[in-house]
């Protein structure tokens, strides 16, 4: 049958394989066929070699970046959702908090690095805090927005039972936020990866940001490419992890 799942599957797999292979193929063609200079674009083999010679191993750098990202992201998400829950409690708390949250949300992570260096020095705390702030305010605004929208049936229920939605913190607000926050979290994850890289550019001894900084100082374009590829893979892995995790957390949306 035309358009059946069986027929679609092989062609989808083919497209997916093409999507994965397209950039390496283009890269290989640019360096080995077109002949773009290694000064601008290192060859795949040069990057593979950089993988072998980097010390400590690339996995160590990736591990430190991933752990800073995880800690900062989890704390930032928790803080963001917590702020939204507080704002939902009363119009007064929302009025008091929203101007600061909106202002802080607009500050790019890179601009805050000097503050964190002054406050935390080169400690891990500063790096966590940088990621946390890149995530928290964005999540707070989105979560607050979610809590302004109720279905007509729920709106009717609240009025009928004389309940205030914002006061049902764990019975209504938190699950409602969790239901709809995933797109914001995925976007915030991208911001967090930028923030953790920036945090590792200064005063770090290990991590993919540190590797990028080192490669710039030693003119190692191959190492720079390697770090960015691993960063990209990390981003894809965290995005997938978020989607899987959300499928578990939002159990009531699972098909039965």
């Amino acid at each position, binding site marked *: 049958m035309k358009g059946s799942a069986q027929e679609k599957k092989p062609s989808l797999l083919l497209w997916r394989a093409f999507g994965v292979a397209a950039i390496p193929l283009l890269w290989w063609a640019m360096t080995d066929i077109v002949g773009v200079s290694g000064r601008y674009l290192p060859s795949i083999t040069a990057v593979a070699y950089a993988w072998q010679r980097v010390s400590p191993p690339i996995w160590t750098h990736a591990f430190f970046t991933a752990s800073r990202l995880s800690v900062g992201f989890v704390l930032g998400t928790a803080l963001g959702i917590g702020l939204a829950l507080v704002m939902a409690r009363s119009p007064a708390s929302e009025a008091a908090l929203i101007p600061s949250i909106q202002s802080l949300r607009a500050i790019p992570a890179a601009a805050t690095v000097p503050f964190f260096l002054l406050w935390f020095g080169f400690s891990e705390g500063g790096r966590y805090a940088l990621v946390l702030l890149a995530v928290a305010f964005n999540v707070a605004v989105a979560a607050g927005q979610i809590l302004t929208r109720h*279905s*007509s*049936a*729920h*709106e*009717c*229920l609240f*009025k*009928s*039972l*004389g*309940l205030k939605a914002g006061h*049902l913190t764990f*019975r*209504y607000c938190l*699950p409602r936020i969790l239901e709809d926050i995933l797109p914001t979290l995925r976007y915030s994850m991208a911001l967090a990866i930028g923030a953790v890289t920036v945090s590792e550019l200064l005063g770090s001894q290990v991590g993919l940001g540190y590797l990028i900084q080192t490669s710039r100082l030693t003119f190692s374009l191959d190492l720079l490419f390697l770090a960015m590829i691993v960063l990209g893979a990390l981003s894809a892995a965290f995005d997938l992890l978020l989607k899987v995790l959300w499928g578990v957390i939002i*159990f*009531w*949306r699972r098909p*039965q």
Partner: protein
Amino acid sequence: MTEAGKSQIIEVRDLSFAYPSMPVFRSFSWRTDMPLSVIQGPSGCGKTTLLKILANQLNPQSGHIASMPNPSRLILQDDALFPWLRVDGNLTLASDWPGWDGFQEPFATFAALLAPLHRRYAAFLSFGQRRAVELLRVLSSNARLLLLDEPLNFLDSEKRALAVQCLRARAESGTAVVVTTHYDADFGLEPAARFAFGTDLPVSSLRPLM
């Protein structure tokens, strides 16, 4: 509570209501002292809007409610259970929930049908089970006016018969009950308790079915 609030009389005078560019009522008046009233009419004629106005959840552009028992409890056709809560959690949202053992007949029989589901998440109930839980929550309330939009939808015949029995029992015990339903025959009401929305579009009218 006012004297009007203690009576079972429902009276609205000269109500006009319109959604943006869509009039629903114009100078609409209705009075009934029937303990159980059934409102019928085609889809989109304004039955739900009327229930929301009676529940004070929508304000008419003009006209007023002259007499209305209160407090009231309204349920819409759409399910209002929280899918992430268990049946127990959904029922205890209502401060007047008496507990599973707090019912007398015929409510006790209706509750007994649902009691085995008390630990189940609402998300994993069938449409009919969810509707029955929502009905139980509203039937167990202390409200003096129940406004129910298609309360019998999705119920199997056993639960439907029991639900009608319970609604009649509430009406007989002094609660005013207004129902919109396509299962009006189940209620076996005399014509004076049945009202029909006219289809004289664009503005609806309501009249007793005689």
